[in-house]
């Protein structure tokens, strides 16, 4: 790892000023993506601004069926939150299956959403739940936030402070983990409520997380796994790698979508 200078931010405003004062600074949250990347010398920021203890970026608030999760909240905290589980168990189950226990004890929702790894789990939840991504300067709808593989609508130096969403009447996440890395080969989040059904898919698309609008239309008229039988997924838009080619992934999307619908009940 190249050398770097570490700073601990007290809160989001402190983090913003530390970042703007740095030559080539990067936020450090749980470090479960950034530290391995720095160890491989694929990133070499001059400064690290640690937001894991930023007071206004931590914690969980559930008010009615509105859920707000601070960006620096760990996967283990989301998985173990009885307040969230009472209204939206699907996101707790998703968090409980990210990586492994040690990763979940450090990795954060803000880091995961900011990174927008094409095989990460939270982006599918954010998109299907129609979440709002809160930053230190504005609010961004999930539909506008995820702009392609490892790419988001965040500006240079913009800091995610939290995410919020309305718990759906029904929701489920079905993940087919890569047996070696545990990242999603395909993960489908289905959320259904007053505003209709939304289906978001991670792990499979060649441009990162996406909404399956044809599935949404079919489920809006008949919310059952069999409603997806007649649909086909275009392999041309799928990832293809040593773990599975695009035809395999196209099939997996449909299989996992049906499991998610069945899981949502």
């Amino acid at each position: 790892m190249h050398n770097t200078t570490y700073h601990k931010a007290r809160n989001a405003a402190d983090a913003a000023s530390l970042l703007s004062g740095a030559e080539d600074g990067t936020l450090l949250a749980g470090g479960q993506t950034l530290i391995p990347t720095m160890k491989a010398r694929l990133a070499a920021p001059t400064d690290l601004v640690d937001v894991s203890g930023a007071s206004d970026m931590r914690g969980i608030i559930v008010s009615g069926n509105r859920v707000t999760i601070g960006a620096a909240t760990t996967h283990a905290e989301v998985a173990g939150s009885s307040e969230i589980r009472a209204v939206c168990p699907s996101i707790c189950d998703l968090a409980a299956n990210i990586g492994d226990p040690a990763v979940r004890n450090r990795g954060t929702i803000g880091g995961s959403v900011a990174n927008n790894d094409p095989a990460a789990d939270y982006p599918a939840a954010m998109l299907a739940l129609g979440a709002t991504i809160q930053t230190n300067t504005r609010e961004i709808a999930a539909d506008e936030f995820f702009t392609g593989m490892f790419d988001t609508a965040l500006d240079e130096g913009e800091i995610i402070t939290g995410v919020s969403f309305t718990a759906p009447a029904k929701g489920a996440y079905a993940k087919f983990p890569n047996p070696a890395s545990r990242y999603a080969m395909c993960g489908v989040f289905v959320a259904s409520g007053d505003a209709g059904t939304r289906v978001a898919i991670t792990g499979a698309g060649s441009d990162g997380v996406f909404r399956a609008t044809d599935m949404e239309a079919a489920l809006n008229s008949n919310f059952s796994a069999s409603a997806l039988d007649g649909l086909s997924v275009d392999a041309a838009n799928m990832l293809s790698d040593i773990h599975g080619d695009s035809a395999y992934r196209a099939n997996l999307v449909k299989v996992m979508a049906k499991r998610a619908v069945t899981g949502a009940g």
Partner: protein
Amino acid sequence: MTTVSMTVNGKAVSSDVEDRTLLVDFIREQLRLTGTHVGCDTSQCGACVVHVNGTAMKSCTMLAVSANDADITTIEGVANDDLHPMQKAFNDNHGLQCGFCTPGMIMSGIDMVNRYKAEGKKLDETAIRHELEGNICRCTGYHNIVKSISQAAGEM
């Protein structure tokens, strides 16, 4: 350089480190506690798991400066005069062969038993296997590791 201070296995330590120093390198090279191992470059193997303020973390995927003021337990700190029940269980059940993964397995094992106890949940074989997803063993085939953790769960 930054001065870090932490408690490791009950002992206060303080040292100047480069900011890029990984916690595992601090533990192994400065403190000379070489029971914590490094088995990969990709944060996947779990040989480096230690407890930071009571929770399992990969010390290879965390900076020493991030652990300032923390309370750390490594494999060297789990036994009193006798072996910890988790260590004894690995011994009883032949839960290791070469032993390289064992410190991480023990630290993850203790963490999962404590967590399931605190939450009042049952740590059955399926749960142990799910909990061990971040610990790789190239020798045992995991079967005796699962048996070991299961025995210790009954004794802790």
